[in-house]
């Protein structure tokens, strides 16, 4: 009998512990797996030989020779691309990939203090852009794009697939980042075509963490972050500064160097920095506990997490609760099944207002009346005003400043106090979501298997909205309580036959199947009004139920899916797929669309003739594929979007003879020929590894042509409608993507790696039929224009070009409002015909970035690690409408307008909103993330009886450099006004700076 002994040790690679490395006793089935830190322990015979392997590293063989402690350092396999990548309906060795798929492994992404999973993708994948924040504060959807805007329907975001089930992109807001194992982004059409109908805008797949055979691992992670907003000096218009400007102007004009009564009066009242009021900062906290483990037959992964983000705005707040259970069981070698259930609950309070609407209030106005300010209140109009009441501008009118009986009027608006507008409203979304799936897999023989899954997702959204009496100058007459419920149920049933076989030099993997999906949405809302008091904010406090609505709708999708992957000698690779999708949203003869794709690859370095010490890995791949889109986003929305091909009548009512009579109203111009939008993409690329893996990367070129775009185009109101849904036009997106990873330095104690990503995108409208040259505007009060003109980027900014400002002497009362500027400006006579008309307008810029990039550096020294990412974008413009609000205040007939009697060349004046005055450079460079961590040593861990522990400090946006041309808070915030008028930078959350500390322990 040979003595058994316990051998323990640590497996390292690239200077860090390797989790999941396999230790096997040669010639037996005995083995174990390393833990998260690379440690292992195994009971073996003292003369055994251990085989240590890990994906991406060369396998090592170590004889035990009676040792009890064995530490092994694995070397990187030069063919380290041997990673497995999740593709649609299957997996593939990375070396065999022929499409453009980027994988992002969640190494430290869950240590970034973010409330949504999609925000973690910023700067992680070349060609994926994430515009950071939405308009109403924390938890709002960012704008996510893969390779620019291809399909230009309003739903131009990629498809989200979690553990193989396509779910609503809304799930990005509820996924637990701690539970994400990896993201896989399918960028080219050939890769996405397997998702056919919904792959047109790329696909992002999330794989959640699985149980690993071995010890049951408990992990607890937590972080707490502190966030704030940097003051924006462009919009900080203080009374003091205003007075200086006025004085300087008086001196320059040779006027009496005296401030106007109004300004002197403002100085008396106060000087409030409104940015400090609405950007109140906040804390973000996360706790996550997971338990994962299992045996050879059964693996499980469970987790529980909680996140609370207070946001940086006055009322925004986001809470998220996640639960997950996933079990996989092997009944036998042939049969396995698994189940995943993933419920989540979010409670989000919005910032129910617009930042620019608040900040345009004048700096003299306080939030509340205090002992000083109350003495200026007009007691005739406001007899009941008290200290502590919200201050409103009209309270301060009719003040006898000079003690001569004269009255100074000061109000520029009759609006209520801007802080009250936000604080006295409560707007919440409560979302309960479940995503689940059951699957079963049966191996018929070594080559064939069948699999099926039944799953889906459900979302129950409850929205409540309350407006109290002080939120509006019109008081309780405008108080209301609103309740909305929307339930979405999506089911998927699929079945596949799979064939996998390696013989000789051939390796074939094929799959074919059917998927059947249903979508059902049930919606209802109720509005109550007639609140005399603010005590009860729910519907039962209303005296009148003033509105109610509700509808149900259904949509179905039927898909036939097939794919063959083939490799010869690991050298010549090919993949062919075909998907046929039927969608219920199209007319009888247009329901089905065909989405084929083909891609080929050649691993040049596998050739015998190729012999280089420099180039260790070189693959050339070319792909071509067709994807589709059935996503309709009409202005009318809801019912129309799912039955768009038919002429629909909606129930209406009219009052005739004092009674309600039923009416049916046509809501759309029917289009029975409405059909699939299709994208064709060509993607040649090379993947390379140089100097034994020191440098690796890829370069992709892509050209995607999207045609028959499903668009709602504006039509003449003379038809009786304002929009019509059509298939129209063609958009081409092309560009180059570069991913470069370098191992700059590697010793036992120190390593330094750099990742460089860059993507260039050019967007051009190549066909727009009769609609080419169409001009649009989205806000009739501030009608800045867009043009969609063939030969130019889609939704180009359009308008006049500023020549010069109007000299202040021609402005009525130029200092009537703090920070106010003239509403009009002289514009250039571009065609030189001596007059300004529509022909003097020109294209002023594109809202889509030409270049996005990121550089990430990672350092490790002994137990310390540090990484930081710079990220930026260039060649992009935004229409910063905040300027129009901030400087121009309220469209009034007198103040801040030019004097029509004296102003010269009035024919050359245009409102600034119609000019390039507010088309600004949306570029930026940001220090997106910085993360410094310390992992406890083994000795220390033993003392505290932990397997692994890490503490870290991270920061986000500690540096954010926007263009000097841009005066707003956040050039990334774009209001969704549809694809034809993109780039409207209105309101929006500012960029939040965060400092976070966190701990993660395994026990």
């Amino acid at each position, binding site marked *: 009998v040979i003595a058994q002994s316990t051998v323990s040790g640590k497996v390292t690679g690239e200077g860090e512990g390797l989790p999941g490395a396999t230790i096997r006793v040669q010639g037996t089935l005995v083995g174990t797996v390393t833990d998260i830190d690379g440690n292992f322990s195994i009971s073996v015979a003292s003369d055994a030989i251990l085989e240590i392997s890990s994906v991406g590293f060369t396998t090592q063989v170590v004889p035990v020779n009676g040792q009890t402690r064995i530490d092994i350092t694995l070397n990187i396999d030069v063919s380290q691309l041997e990673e497995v990548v999740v593709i649609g309906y299957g997996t593939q060795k990375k070396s065999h990939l022929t499409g453009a798929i980027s994988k992002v492994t969640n190494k430290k992404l869950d240590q970034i203090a973010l409330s949504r999973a999609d925000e973690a993708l910023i700067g992680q994948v070349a060609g994926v852009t994430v515009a950071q924040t939405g308009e109403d504060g924390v938890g709002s959807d960012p704008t996510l794009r893969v390779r620019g805007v291809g399909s230009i329907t309003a739903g131009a975001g990629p498809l989200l697939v979690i553990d193989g089930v396509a779910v609503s992109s809304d799930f990005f807001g509820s996924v637990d980042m701690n539970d994400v194992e990896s993201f896989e982004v399918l960028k080219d059409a050939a890769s996405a075509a397997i998702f056919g109908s919904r792959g047109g805008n790329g696909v992002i797949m999330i794989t959640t963490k699985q149980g690993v055979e071995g010890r049951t691992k408990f992990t607890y992670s937590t972080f707490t972050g502190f966030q704030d907003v940097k003051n924006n000096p462009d919009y900080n218009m203080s009374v003091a500064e205003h007075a200086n400007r006025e004085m300087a102007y008086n001196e320059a004009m040779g006027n009496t160097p005296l401030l106007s009564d109004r300004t002197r009066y403002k100085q008396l009242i106060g000087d409030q920095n409104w940015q400090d009021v609405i950007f109140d900062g906040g804390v973000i906290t996360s706790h996550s506990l997971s338990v994962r483990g299992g045996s050879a037959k059964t693996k499980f992964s469970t987790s529980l997490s909680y996140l609370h983000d207070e946001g940086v705005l006055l009322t925004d707040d986001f809470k998220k609760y996640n639960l997950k259970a996933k079990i996989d069981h092997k009944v036998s070698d042939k049969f396995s099944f698994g189940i995943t259930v993933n419920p989540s609950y979010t409670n989000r309070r919005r910032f129910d207002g617009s930042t620019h609407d608040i900040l345009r209030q004048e700096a003299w106005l306080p939030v509340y009346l205090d002992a000083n300010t109350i003495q200026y209140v007009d007691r005739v109009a406001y007899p009941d005003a008290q200290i502590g009441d919200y201050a409103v501008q009209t309270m301060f009118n009719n003040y006898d400043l000079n003690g001569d009986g004269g009255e100074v009027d000061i109000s520029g608006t009759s609006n209520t106090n801007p802080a009250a507008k936000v604080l006295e409203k409560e707007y919440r979304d409560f979302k309960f979501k479940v995503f689940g799936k059951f699957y079963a897999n049966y191996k018929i023989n070594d080559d064939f298997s069948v699999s099926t899954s039944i799953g889906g997702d459900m979302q129950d959204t409850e929205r409540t909205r309350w407006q109290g009496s002080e939120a509006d100058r019109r008081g309780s007459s405008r108080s209301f309580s609103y309740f909305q419920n929307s339930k979405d149920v999506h089911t998927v049933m699929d079945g596949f036959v799979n064939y996998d076989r390696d013989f000789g030099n051939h390796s074939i993997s094929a799959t074919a199947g059917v998927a059947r999906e249903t979508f059902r949405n049930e919606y209802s809302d109720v509005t109550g009004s007639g609140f005399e008091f603010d005590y009860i904010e729910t519907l039962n406090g209303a005296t009148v139920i003033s509105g109610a609505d509700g509808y149900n709708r259904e949509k179905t999708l039927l898909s036939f899916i097939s794919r063959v992957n083939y490799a010869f000698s690991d050298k010549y690779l090919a993949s062919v797929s075909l998907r046929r999708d039927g969608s219920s949203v199209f007319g009888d003869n247009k329901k089905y669309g065909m989405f084929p794709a083909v891609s080929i690859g050649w691993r040049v370095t596998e050739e015998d003739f190729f012999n280089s010490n420099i180039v260790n890995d070189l693959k050339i791949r070319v792909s071509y594929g067709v994807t589709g889109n059935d996503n309709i986003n009409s202005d009318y929305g809801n019912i129309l979007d799912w039955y768009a091909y038919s002429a629909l009548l909606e129930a209406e009512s*009219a009052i005739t003879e004092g009674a309600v009579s039923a009416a049916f109203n046509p809501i759309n111009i029917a289009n029975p020929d409405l059909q699939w939008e299709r994208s064709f993409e060509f993607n040649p690329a090379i993947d390379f590894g140089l100097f034994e893996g020191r440098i690796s990367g890829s370069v992709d070129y892509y050209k995607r042509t999207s045609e028959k775009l499903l668009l709602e185009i504006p039509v003449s109101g003379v038809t009786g409608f304002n929009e019509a849904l059509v298939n129209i036009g063609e958009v081409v997106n092309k560009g180059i993507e570069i991913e470069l990873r370098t191992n700059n330095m590697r010793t036992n104690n120190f390593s330094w790696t750099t990742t460089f990503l860059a993507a260039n995108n050019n967007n051009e409208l190549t066909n727009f039929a009769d609609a080419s040259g169409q001009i649009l505007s989205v806000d009739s009060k501030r009608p800045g224009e867009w043009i969609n003109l063939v030969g130019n980027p889609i939704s180009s900014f359009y308008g006049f070009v500023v020549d010069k400002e109007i000299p202040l002497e021609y402005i009525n009362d130029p200092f009537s409002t703090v920070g106010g500027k003239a509403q009009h400006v002289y514009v250039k006579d571009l065609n030189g015909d001596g007059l300004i008309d529509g022909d003097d307008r020109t294209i002023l810029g594109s809202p889509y970035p030409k270049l996005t990039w990121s550089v990430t550096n990672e350092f490790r020294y002994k137990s310390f690690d540090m990484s930081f990412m710079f990220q930026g974008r260039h060649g992009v413009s935004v229409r910063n409408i905040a300027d129009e609000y901030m400087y121009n205040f309220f469209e009034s007939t007198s103040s801040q307008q030019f004097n029509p009697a004296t102003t010269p060349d009035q024919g050359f004046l245009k409102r600034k909103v119609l000019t390039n005055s507010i088309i600004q450079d949306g570029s930026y460079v940001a220090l997106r993330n910085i993360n410094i961590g310390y992992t406890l040593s083994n000795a220390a861990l033993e003392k505290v009886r932990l397997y692994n522990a890490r503490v870290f400090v991270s920061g986000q946006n500690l540096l954010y450099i926007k263009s000097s041309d841009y005066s707003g808070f956040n050039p990334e915030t774009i209001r969704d006004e549809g694809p034809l008028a993109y780039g409207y930078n209105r309101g929006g959350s500012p960029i939040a700076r965060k400092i976070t500390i966190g701990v993660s322990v395994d026990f």
Partner: protein
Amino acid sequence: VNKKIKIMKYLKYIVLSVFSMTVSSCGEDFLSPKPISSITADTFYSSEKELETAVINMYDGIQGINSTSNDDNHGVQEEYILTEMRTDNSGTRSGEGEPARLESYSVESTNSTVANYYSSFYNIIFRAHVVLENLGVADSQRDRFEGEAKFVRAYAYFNLVRLFGEVPMPTSVVLQDNEGVLFTRIGTSTIYDLIVDDLTTAVANLDNTYKTRASQAAAQALLAKVHLTLGEYNEALPLLEPVISSMEFDLEENFEDIYEISNERNEEIIFAIGYDGVNQTDSQLFSAEMTANGRTSGLNYLPQNMISALENIGGAERAAASYQEDPKPQYAGFFQTKKFIPNGNPEASDPTIGGNDWIVLRYADVLLMHVEAIMAGNPSTSDGGAIASFQKVRDRAGLTDLVTTITAQELLDERRVELAFENHRFFDLIRFGVAETVLGDWADDQGYNFSVTDLLLPIPQREINLSKGQLDQNPGY
């Protein structure tokens, strides 16, 4: 082991059966779910009862959507901004916002209130065309439905042609590709020919059953107004006389009772747009917008000029029923329109469900048109019939002094104070040929920049842009 094999076989069948279920549920029906909460138009309008929903839908269009978004068609709800507020009758309380551009004659072609009215009224015309194109399914009510649809179409075109001048004139449902119709401005005389034809049919086909749907009297009165507008006094008179002699209409005894919300559709009303105060969707905007509770904190507020007219010419009764001081203490000294505020109380719990009907035609208007038709463009008249009609209106207002002759100015003044804020003044000034002088003087007085081109509104810039140059703008914009 045997047991296990059995289970395995069993499971195999489960997998295969789920698989086959997936495939078998692939019938064509699966991809054609029926709309649950709407109707498909292909099969609708198959009976008279169904067609009546399209008739009702026309009035729903005129009623418009009660929302504060100018993306929603507001129907007739904001017409006063384009008519009353462009005269010496009213303006904004604050001078703020887009509506102030109308009172100061500095309207831009991008004005959203103007664009909204344009698209609303073409939507009303579209709804009328849906009725006209499906008349085949009607039976006993065919003539009535035709009359109603043609009345509605004429009413819409009459307002469009007076506000915008030459406009596109579809006479059936048109789709977006029919640019020849959508972007061709038709001469006003052609439009008036259609209006006269339509109203003639309506007079022939309708009776006086309804007050908030089209009636014969409404068609007669509207057609009379069309003829007065065209200077065809001889055509107008025989239309007005039967309305007067029918004895189906009379003046309310008390002026203020015309507007009493519990007394709607009273004997004086010939045609009104119905609203109710129960549900937001069936109510209107203007009851709130004409108070400080509106978006622009007060529209249709009275300048001193109008207050003087009401007090000096209108007499106490009409003045008291027509306007009042804003009851909010901070707006003391501002005077608001009272006729369309529920019970005159702007602080009613929810002004967005005010519910007052909008009066389009009433008997007093018919009586004064009767005078106008007899006066026939002359400076004055002493005709007995004219005097009787004129005296009747004044007597009701408590102004019982006997009238012996009526001058055009007196008739215009009488119309101003009797029909104040009911969207007549602007059209009256044009019809009487004094718009340029009266509004010019008024603008000078207010410091506004008025020219004769301000009498027509701009074609909405949206339409000009969509037409890519096919539509010409009105001069001055």
